[in-house]
């Protein structure tokens, strides 16, 4: 049974100053099963973030509909947790208060909130920073907090929009392992947008490749590398074979996106 169903969803942005309307996303169909970890891979500006925003309910599709647990998505809601590429922790709240934000909006009691927050800070290794403000933390720590904040809400699906895009390579690799570890234990349904091929393969049970704008799905590739997945898998021949294939797929699109070379 599919957890998330994207049916014929497209998005056309209205024209700006008499120009042509922008077709960000061609009619798209995706079905994501319960507990899947799906990465959406595509060149910059291919509409992959648009797709994620549509699923989050932060934007409205021009055509089609999105069903989560067979209920249509209309607005943003706590059943779809989201981690953004930009640092979106609330700067006036401490790390612990940030993680508690969603629970507070739900009206969960302070005691229960404290318990859940403690658990999640422990899982992302930030217990000692509970009472710090976001600006006192590094980018990697802030994104770990953002992941904890989204998951503390216990969403039906976790959406991540290039969450590690602004981090350096080493931090990014550690963050991928942390996220994978959490997913292997929690078995959440995850939709993860990235333009990094290695990241897409390492994390996913399935990689969806998108074309250059207007975006549509070009390939849907299962990743049979098994879990739990160790970082050394990145140097295995199977990994390299998938990477070689995806590199070809993406290169064509990147060339198109760059205006043809």
């Amino acid at each position, binding site marked *: 049974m599919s957890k998330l169903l994207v049916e014929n969803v497209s998005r056309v942005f209205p024209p700006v100053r008499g120009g042509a309307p922008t077709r960000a996303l061609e009619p798209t169909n995706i079905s994501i099963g319960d507990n899947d970890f799906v990465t959406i891979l595509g060149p910059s500006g291919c509409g992959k973030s648009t797709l994620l925003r549509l699923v*989050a*309910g*932060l934007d409205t599709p021009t055509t089609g509909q999105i069903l989560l647990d067979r209920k249509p998505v209309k*607005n*943003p*809601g*706590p059943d*779809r*947790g*989201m981690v*953004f590429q*930009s640092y*979106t922790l*609330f*700067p*006036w*709240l401490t790390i612990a208060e940030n993680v508690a*934000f*969603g629970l*507070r*909006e*739900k009206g969960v009691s302070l005691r229960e909130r404290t318990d859940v927050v403690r658990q999640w800070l422990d899982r992302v290794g930030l217990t000692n920073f509970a009472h710090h*403000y*976001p*600006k006192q933390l590094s980018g990697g720590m802030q994104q770990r907090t*953002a992941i904890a*904040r*989204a998951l503390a*809400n216990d969403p039906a699906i976790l*959406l991540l929009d290039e969450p590690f895009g602004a981090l350096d390579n080493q931090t990014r690799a550690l963050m991928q392992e942390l996220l994978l570890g959490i997913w292997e234990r929690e078995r959440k349904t995850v939709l993860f947008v990235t333009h990094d091929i290695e990241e897409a393969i390492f994390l996913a049970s399935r990689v969806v490749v998108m074309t250059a704008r207007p975006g549509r799905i070009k390939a849907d590739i299962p990743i049979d590398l098994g879990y739990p997945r160790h970082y050394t898998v990145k140097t295995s021949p199977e990994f390299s074979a998938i990477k070689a294939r995806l590199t070809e797929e993406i290169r064509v699109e990147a060339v198109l996106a760059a205006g043809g070379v």
Partner: protein
Amino acid sequence: MRPLAPISNGSRIVLGILFFILFVAAWAFATFGGYVSKTFLADPVTMLEDGWLLLTKHGFLGDIGITVWRVVGGFMIAALVAVPLGILMGAYKPIEAFLEPFVSFARYLPASAFIPLLILWAGIGELQKLLVIFIGSVFQIILMVAVTVSAVRRDLVEAALTLGAKDSGILARVLIPSSAPDIAEILRLVLGWAWTYVIVAELIGSSSGIGHMIIDSQALLATGQIIFGIIVIGIIGLISDYLFKAVNRHLFPWSLS
């Protein structure tokens, strides 16, 4: 000196005081040296003597008190009205569309030009003084607060939405806390402007306050007293500014750079 290079705290204080010393020195040179007639500009020593007389013999402390009370009173009323209105305008676009054109227009009405009208309406009592400050401050605060609130980072609002925040939650737990330090900064700025309005209000139709003392001194050609009054206003402004900054630092530790 290199562009943007920081300096030590000690040299910052020394340099800051140095300008005051140079300023007073130039003033003393111009007056004691006889380059400016005493009729037009008193020398620093005369100014201090006049100031001492004002404080000890003429009850100037009472004038200072009444002026501070007027500024703070009028400003508080303006802030109580303007901050909520500004927040609502910033948060809700229909309210903005409804109020913004009028407020933008009213902002350019000079508060001092209302004084004759306000004297007709409210007499020359305290209410009229408060109204001058209120009119001078309220529209400025509304507009600046509205701009600040509507400029809250969109991604923070979106993050809150995906965490399950409803409209009232967005307003109370994202828009307001996010813009609170800037709103405090706006209030600090407008309080400074309120000081210019109160003096103008006291120059016309008043029997007390710093502005009243200044206009009385003009009739007596007591330039020492006038300058002393002006300096007192500057010092009070400096103190209130410092207090405001200290309170802001204490209230919003997260917004410090």
